[in-house]
């Protein structure tokens, strides 16, 4: 599986997911801190409550305490506890001592000391001395001294927790009042809430994002397909419907306009070339008729050859404008017979062209065009390379139509240039042989029309090798 998404939608979804996770982490930390704070102040409040209520040591029986509690419950009085406040374990009875005992492992809590002091003073308690520490419950001497308390601690699972021990001596009092508040359990609910929240937000956001993004990516994908198709065929179709957000619609409309403009230009070019072809061919035909009255036969032959040259160049130019724009579908054709038929045309004119026989290969091709490409390559081979050997090769991936000659080949750095229009090998010397220098360009266009390519290489044993390789699908 690919982890890094490549599509626009995938990447935006990933970015959104990461952003949500980050935001939720921050939220989680904040929520946790808030919970901690609430727990803290709840403990201090609980301690303060004990310390404010009783200013002097008094002997109360258990019976009395219960009576007071019951009365308070009946009055509907409860300890003010905010809804989110952590549930505190039952407090431990206030202890009165002359001097608060210090145990090993005690952690003084100066910050809380001040908070508690402020709390008590706001309730009108005059504090002479204050001491707040945190201590392990099991290390507290009072737990050790009172087995029943110890049992209760065990029952409620408080053994391993800390006590907040708050000792206060009021002004004028001889003894310290020591309140102990067991630390409440850390709330599990908080984590669960955050997790659940994250999940819900994540699902809502990504699913809505998914559908929103589809509105963008669908027209984009259609546009990409359309552009690819247009690049391949240069034929404008119905304009693409402008869908999606406005930016995308603008892009689609711009593409439609561009497509129309390009295909308009191409059409114009084709019409123009067609007109040139027609307009030039008629006077050429007139000229061809007129030279028949030239008495000198060799002169007449030369004139005819020039006219034939011009005609061939004209045909090449017109073909180049037309290649790839045929309305006819490709036809199932025996490539071996096609190659043989083209070679035979040359053989019949007594040209040194040989063929290496190959069994049938039947593929859909544009016959007229492929024949034309072969003809161009073979006549080049004969013209510049003395003789041509034509062979057909096939492997899993490609079908190759190969034309080898025994000529001087082409300088390696000129090979690429040779495929460009109006280029000729050693222009001055071959001027007499004519042609507009479009033969190879046309052959290449025809190879490309078939989804293949034209490759020229110099053979190790000398001579040029031209190969039309077609995909063997």
């Amino acid at each position, binding site marked *: 599986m690919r982890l890094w998404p490549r599509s626009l939608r995938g990447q935006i979804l990933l970015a959104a997911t990461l952003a949500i996770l980050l935001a939720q982490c921050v939220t989680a930390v904040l929520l946790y801190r808030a919970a901690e704070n609430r727990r803290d102040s709840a403990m201090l409040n609980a301690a303060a409550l004990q310390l404010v209520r009783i200013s002097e040591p008094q002997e109360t029986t258990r019976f009395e305490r219960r009576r007071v509690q019951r009365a308070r419950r009946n009055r509907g009085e409860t300890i003010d506890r905010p809804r989110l406040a952590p549930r505190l374990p039952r407090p431990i009875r206030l202890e009165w001592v002359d001097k608060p005992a210090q145990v090993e492992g005690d952690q003084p809590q100066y910050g809380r000391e001040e908070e508690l002091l402020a709390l008590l003073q706001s309730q009108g308690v005059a504090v002479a001395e204050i001491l707040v520490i945190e201590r392990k419950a099991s290390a507290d001497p009072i737990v050790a001294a009172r087995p029943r308390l110890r049992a209760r601690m065990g029952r409620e699972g408080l053994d391993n927790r800390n006590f907040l021990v708050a000792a206060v001596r009021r002004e004028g009092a001889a003894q310290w009042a020591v309140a102990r508040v067991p630390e409440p359990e850390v709330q599990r609910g908080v984590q669960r809430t955050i997790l659940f929240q994250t999940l819900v937000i994540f699902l809502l956001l990504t699913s809505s994002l998914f559908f929103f993004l589809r509105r963008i990516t669908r027209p984009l994908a259609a546009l990409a397909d359309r552009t690819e198709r247009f690049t391949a065929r240069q034929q404008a179709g119905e304009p693409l419907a402008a869908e999606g957000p406005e930016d995308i619609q603008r892009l689609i409309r711009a593409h439609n306009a561009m497509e129309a403009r390009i295909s308009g230009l191409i059409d114009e070019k084709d019409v123009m070339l067609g007109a040139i072809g027609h307009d030039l*061919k008629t*006077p050429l035909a007139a000229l061809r008729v007129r030279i028949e009255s030239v008495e000198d036969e060799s002169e007449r032959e030369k004139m005819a050859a020039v006219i034939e040259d011009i005609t061939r160049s004209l045909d090449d130019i017109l073909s180049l404008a037309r290649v790839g724009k045929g309305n006819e579908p490709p036809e*199932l054709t*025996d490539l071996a017979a096609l190659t043989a038929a083209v070679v035979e045309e040359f053989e019949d004119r007594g040209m040194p062209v040989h063929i290496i026989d190959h069994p049938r290969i039947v593929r859909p091709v544009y016959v007229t065009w492929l024949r034309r490409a072969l003809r161009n390559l073979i006549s080049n081979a004969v013209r510049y390379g003395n003789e041509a050997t034509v062979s057909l090769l096939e492997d899993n991936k490609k079908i190759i139509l190969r034309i080898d000659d025994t000529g001087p080949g082409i300088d390696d750095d000129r090979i690429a240039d040779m495929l460009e229009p109006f280029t000729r090998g050693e222009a001055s010397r071959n001027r007499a042989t004519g042609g507009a220098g479009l033969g190879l360009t046309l052959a290449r266009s025809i190879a490309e029309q078939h989804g293949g390519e034209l490759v020229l290489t110099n053979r190790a044993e000398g001579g040029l090798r031209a190969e039309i390789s077609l995909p063997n699908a």
Partner: protein
Amino acid sequence: MTETALTSLLLVDDEASLREPLAEYLVRQGFDVQQAVSAAAARSLLRETVPDLVLLDVMMPGEDGLSLCRHLVEARQLPVILLTAKGEATDRIIGLEIGADDYVTKPFEPRELVARIRSVLRRAGRASSTRLADSPYEFEGWQLDPLKRRLTDPEGVLVSISTAEFRLLRAFLDHPRQVLDRDQLLNMVQGREAHLFDRAVDNQISRLRRKIEADSRNPEYIVTVRGGGYRFAAKVSRPLPDKD
């Protein structure tokens, strides 16, 4: 020489620069030539005289050559040779399909045009129904379309053949199950491009066999007859075209 001995031609082309020298040339070649600058002019001329053959430019302002051609072939049964500037195979085939007897692409060799005029006239004289000449041949699932010069195998795969092979095959298909010797074959296939047949007939036959026989060394269609020549062994049929 009486007037009727001259072959009369009607040349229809809007381009005076071509029409006039061509008419002169044809007159020098012994034809009686009338000229028309447009399809309309041609139609009015045709009301008075009937030429033996019409030379017709395809691209003309007003009514174009193809439309006039259809009229000439269907209503008047006149042989037509199209003069076209377009070289595309499809354009030529359209011309032939609407009934033109032949076509030349501009610029053409005047002598070739004359050869084609004579060949078309010969054909027109021989057979009153020239349409039959265009219907495809069939043998053992193979099809040869004489109009498009297309040979397709029983699976419909196009098997390219050269002009020489086409003529040779057509000669065989016209005379199935007859023994044809080399001279007869040469006679039958010699068209206007006689030079194509400089090579021995045997050579063309072995090429043709490679393309249509399953095993060219053990041929089933084109069989060698000892001492006599060749014989086309398969049954040949020519279903008439669907159109009228």
